[in-house]
């Protein structure tokens, strides 16, 4: 009896090490995945792992609004989760201001600073409708959106110095001042959508009477790898699902203390009948909310009673769009891009293999000819 119990705890312990990242008092252990054939602690040494892992993938969308979403992917490796995150940040294309032709700028903001500020303004335009512009190409209606900005600051004639009211007119340049100028067939193509800055109230520059800004800005398609202004996300991140494993029941006043060690909503104290007595018992209700602050590990009274872990293949993604693309589209695009990158590499590999074959056959032919001679 005693022996079997020990065996089961050992198995439980191994299970935890295989599937969980263990958060300890002053370090994190069991970090790397062991889901590989012939790994020392592998559960299935001779199975088709690819098949196995594929069959347990779960995707669950937890929270969603148009530009913000939180979703879970369960059953994938960290490398794939990280590839998706990296692609969302750096490889999903959008449109952003890339070239600024400044005709007049007498404001205090220097031309280059002004151009940089303009570049960072998110521009609402469907990137799928446009082509990438190579540096050698000329701007066309297929690869460029043109904006004009013209604003001059003046003294407000209706207000004298001692009166209340705005002293100046047009002294704040907001993003709404960027006026889209359709080129070619763009007016026809985008008659149902509005092209322009996502937010109208981004402050670009401030002026004083007599100062003036007049410029033309060209938007081009690009991706975040080249410059962060093309990144479609404000944040795209993932974390591992926290899990609090209770090794034994925590009761009485300790239960309250235990609950206070976690973020609110993680642990609840319940009244339960234990041995005919009504007792307070701590229960983990929602470990997703846990911040994994490790506060509980600082207290002697909980030593050995609790283990903080994170589930190694349960990724909680958070994708927050800048407002150009819907959050779901960003995720979908990233998946699409990942598989198209694979296809592209397969093609490259194929070309290499064919080259190799050709050189080998020609060499063989040469050898054969030499033999004949």
């Amino acid at each position, binding site marked *: 009896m005693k022996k079997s119990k020990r065996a089961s705890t050992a198995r*439980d312990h191994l*299970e935890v090490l*295989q*599937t*969980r990242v263990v958060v300890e008092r002053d370090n994190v252990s069991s970090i790397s995945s062991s889901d*590989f*054939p*012939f790994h020392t602690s592998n*559960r299935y040494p001779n199975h088709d*792992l*690819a098949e*196995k*892992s*594929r*069959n*347990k*993938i*779960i*995707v*669950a*969308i*937890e929270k*969603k*609004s*148009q*530009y*913000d979403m939180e979703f879970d992917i*369960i*059953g*994938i490796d960290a*490398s*794939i989760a*990280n*590839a998706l995150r*990296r692609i969302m940040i*750096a490889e999903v294309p959008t449109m952003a201001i890339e070239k600024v032709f400044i005709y007049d700028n007498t404001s205090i903001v220097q031309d280059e600073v002004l151009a940089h500020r303009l570049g960072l303004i998110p521009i609402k335009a469907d990137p799928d409708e446009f082509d990438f512009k190579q540096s050698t190409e000329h701007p066309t209606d297929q690869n460029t959106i043109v904006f004009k900005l013209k604003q001059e600051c003046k003294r407000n004639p209706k207000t004298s110095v001692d009166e209340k009211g705005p002293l100046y007119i047009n002294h704040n340049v907001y993003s709404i001042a960027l006026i889209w100028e359709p080129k070619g067939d763009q007016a026809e193509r985008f008659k149902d959508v509005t092209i322009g800055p996502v937010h109208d109230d981004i402050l670009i520059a401030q002026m004083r009477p007599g100062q003036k800004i007049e410029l033309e800005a060209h938007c081009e398609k690009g*991706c975040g*790898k*080249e*410059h962060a202004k093309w990144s479609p996300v404000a944040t795209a991140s993932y974390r591992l*699902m926290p899990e609090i*494993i209770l090794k034994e029941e925590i009761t009485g006043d300790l239960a309250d203390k235990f609950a206070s060690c976690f973020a609110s909503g993680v642990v609840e104290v319940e009244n339960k009948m234990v041995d005919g007595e009504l007792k307070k018992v701590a229960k983990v209700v929602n470990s997703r909310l846990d911040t994994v602050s490790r506060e509980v590990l600082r207290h002697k009274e909980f030593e050995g009673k609790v283990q903080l872990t994170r589930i*190694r*293949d*349960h990724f909680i993604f958070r994708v927050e769009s800048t407002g150009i693309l819907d959050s779901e589209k960003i*995720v*979908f695009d990233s*998946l*699409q891009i*990942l*598989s198209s*990158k*694979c*296809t592209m*590499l*397969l093609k*490259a*590999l194929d070309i*290499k293999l064919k080259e*190799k074959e050709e050189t080998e056959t020609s060499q063989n032919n040469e050898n054969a000819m030499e033999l004949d001679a």
Partner: protein
Amino acid sequence: MNAPDRFDVFYLPPGSQKMKITPDTKVQNAATFEIFREDHTMGNVIRYKLLQEPQVIFAGYKVPHPLEHNVIIRVQTTNDTKPEAMVAKALNDLITEVGYLRTKFMEDLGRARALVIPREQKSMVEQEPQMVQPTREPVNTSVGGTGGVGVDMDF
């Protein structure tokens, strides 16, 4: 002045090769794959997929220099196969897995979408965009079971 072009990060000049395969001169069934204009995104994912194959003895990747935009993957296999074949298999497996992910994502999106208030309706009542919490069956994440996840899904 001598700054490299910004598009160098991803732009492969026309006519140049995407990949270079160098067989190892001393070890049998081993080769290094240099992939140009790729980074950790593909390197790590290919390494992972290679390690899933029992025929792969060694697989590793590195990005040799942060200013050079290429990644080197080294593979050694058993005698049954060739490194090229294993990399091809890894890439094919990856395409399938991402395909599964995409289907799963679309499926769940359909469910989540039904719970989000349509845009027009929202503007009518002039509400701040709300995070809608869709209800769903709780995913069993308890310790136990064969996999890392309590729920097994059938396809």
